[in-house]
């Protein structure tokens, strides 16, 4: 046995992969298959699953409704389509804002003297030491009607003698967007930083030497060479934002419901695992489709993920 372990590369490989393989099959593949099966089932009256084959859950998701106000047998109810669309738009907005915020900062850190770079990266990572939920609650303290932001704005308005009514910021799509951007910023900064740091200084010098000013050097050399970082960051941000429900739950309340919230409520409140499973699969497919077209255009950012 030991001798075989020493001599056989393929045996070593199998041994190294096995724990993860068991984990992935047991906790990803099998649950995924179960979810697919359940999504075609029917809810029983006590919140269980009747295993059958029906597309009811999916038709409900895309707006086919049988409980209509006007008494018709069926009608279009945009409730769930709206939720899906809202989630998609919010994920796009978050990703774009995060890129716009993370890129200049990453650039600054990457070009800072080596000694300071670690300090800056450390500062980027410090928020991650606190629990995700606690950080979202902190935003609640900042944004609510009697919160920090309104307090500061009120004090300024008072000093300038401008009439001021506290802004209703909490429980708006804007609040959810701010929370998402804040939560996911580090996941964009790190890969972009990694890709920028890898660009040899002599490439900037070569561009300048060949006649490119700072602006053109950025668009012709810096940006293309750091695209793998942007792509990797986008994957790390877009996919979780599509599915997360905590930020929208705390900062969006009942006003901003995303797919994540929908799924959570189907399982916990409405006790309809079949509809929840269908929504989960639709979310997964939507995310995969967007990611597929994105990576087809810009590559997988694999240089960064591997590094």
């Amino acid at each position, binding site marked *: 046995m030991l001798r075989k372990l020493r001599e056989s590369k393929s045996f070593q490989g199998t041994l190294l992969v096995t724990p993860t393989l068991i984990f992935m099959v047991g906790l990803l593949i099998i649950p995924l298959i179960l979810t697919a099966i359940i999504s075609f089932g029917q809810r029983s009256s006590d919140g269980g699953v009747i295993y059958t084959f029906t597309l009811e859950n999916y038709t409900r998701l895309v707006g086919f409704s049988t409980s209509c106000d006007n008494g018709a047998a069926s009608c279009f109810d945009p409730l769930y389509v709206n939720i899906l669309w809202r989630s998609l738009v919010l994920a796009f907005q978050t990703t774009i804002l995060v890129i716009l915020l993370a890129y200049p900062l990453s650039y600054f850190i990457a070009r800072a003297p080596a000694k300071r770079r670690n300090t800056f990266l450390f500062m980027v990572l410090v928020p991650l030491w606190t629990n995700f939920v606690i950080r979202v609650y902190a935003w609640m303290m900042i944004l609510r009607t009697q919160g920090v932001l309104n307090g500061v704005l009120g004090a300024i308005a008072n000093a300038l003698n401008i009439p001021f009514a506290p802004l209703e910021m909490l429980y708006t799509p804007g609040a959810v967007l701010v929370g998402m951007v804040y939560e996911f910023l580090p996941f964009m900064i790190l890969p972009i930083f990694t890709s920028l740091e890898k660009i*040899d200084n*002599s*490439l900037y*010098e*070569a*561009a*300048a*030497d*060949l*006649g*490119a*000013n700072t602006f*053109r050097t950025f668009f*012709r*050399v810096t940006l*293309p*060479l750091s695209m793998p970082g942007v792509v990797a960051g986008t994957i790390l941000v877009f996919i979780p934002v599509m599915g997360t429900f905590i930020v929208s739950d705390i900062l969006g309340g009942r006003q901003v419901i995303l797919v994540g919230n929908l799924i959570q409520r189907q399982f916990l409140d409405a006790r309809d695992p079949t509809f929840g499973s269908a929504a989960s699969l639709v979310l997964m497919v939507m995310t995969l489709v967007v990611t597929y077209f994105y990576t087809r255009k810009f590559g997988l950012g694999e240089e960064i993920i591997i590094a």
Partner: protein
Amino acid sequence: MSDFAVELRDVVKTFQTPEGGSVNAVDHVDMGIRHGEFFSMLGSSGCGKTTSLRMVAGFEWPTVGEVYIEDHPQGHRPPFQRPVNTVFQNYALFQHMTVAQNVAFGLEMDKTPVNEIKRRVGEALAMVKLSEMGKRSPRQLSGGQQQRIALARALVKRPKVLLLDEPLGALDLKLRKEMQLELKALQREVGITFIFVTHDQEEALTMSDRIAVMSRGKVLQVGAPVEIYERPNCKFVADFIGDTNFLDGQVSAVDQNKVTVFVPRLNNDVVGMGNGQLKPGDQVVISIRPEKIRLSEQSTLNQNCLPVRITNSAYIGSDTRLEVEANGVKLKVWEQNHISTLDPRAYHQGDQQAWVTLFPENALVLPAE
């Protein structure tokens, strides 16, 4: 208009050290590089050669003094406004572009018309014999080919001066020798002034019209390869370029260029060539190259003839390299093997008595440091 394509006038470049001090990487350098010449800056690492080059390119600005290109003071002008181009040590090719796009980059920055870019990129690639490679990625090319692309990318802009920062350093020996000759031929062909930075003295001697030998931020000597080798102006240059023997002594008599030096370790006078500024009593060092010492069985009756014992002998094919001892002083002597024979008596062996002659015209008297 002056003779010079590039001129450094009393240039100083000070860098801050991490410990909080400061160091002059370039220390009051005056240097003029003539139009169309192949000029090398030679020295070991940290001698200021690369910093000097980077100040011409515009990547660094002088702390004191001024860099002139074609008689125009450059001040704090950025690199993209200077009529010079650089070939970098690591080539610095853009990996996200094809070879042709790399070469075209500089022309695009100048807003050259597309047709002309196409034509000139083609010419540049043909010049470095890589016409077929335009569509490839630089990653797919060998080190030597990447080197040529870097050269084409810089030359396609037809700079007034081409700056080369140890461009052959990463190549293996054989390829380096080939590229040396090719680079020199290319320079003659395009007629552009080349400023070449290297730590390899043989490379500098092979390629250059003139060489500046640098050490600790200062230029010690500027001259043609033959001047640098045959008439070094100080002990450092004599030591740095090629191999040599040193004898410490004191000037006892001066007769025009002939200087008589008393060498205490030989307990003898040695006559050598001085530069006319020496006077009796000066502390000096005599430099004599190993291939310029004559070894013989009999005394040549020359005034600089000394009895020696051969202590070591190494046959290296073209030469026999000997170590001899005269009164406890070790000297290196190289004898050319100009007769083809297997007879061991034709080659000097170790542990023989012999005579060496240090011909006065081969013994250079230099100021002691």
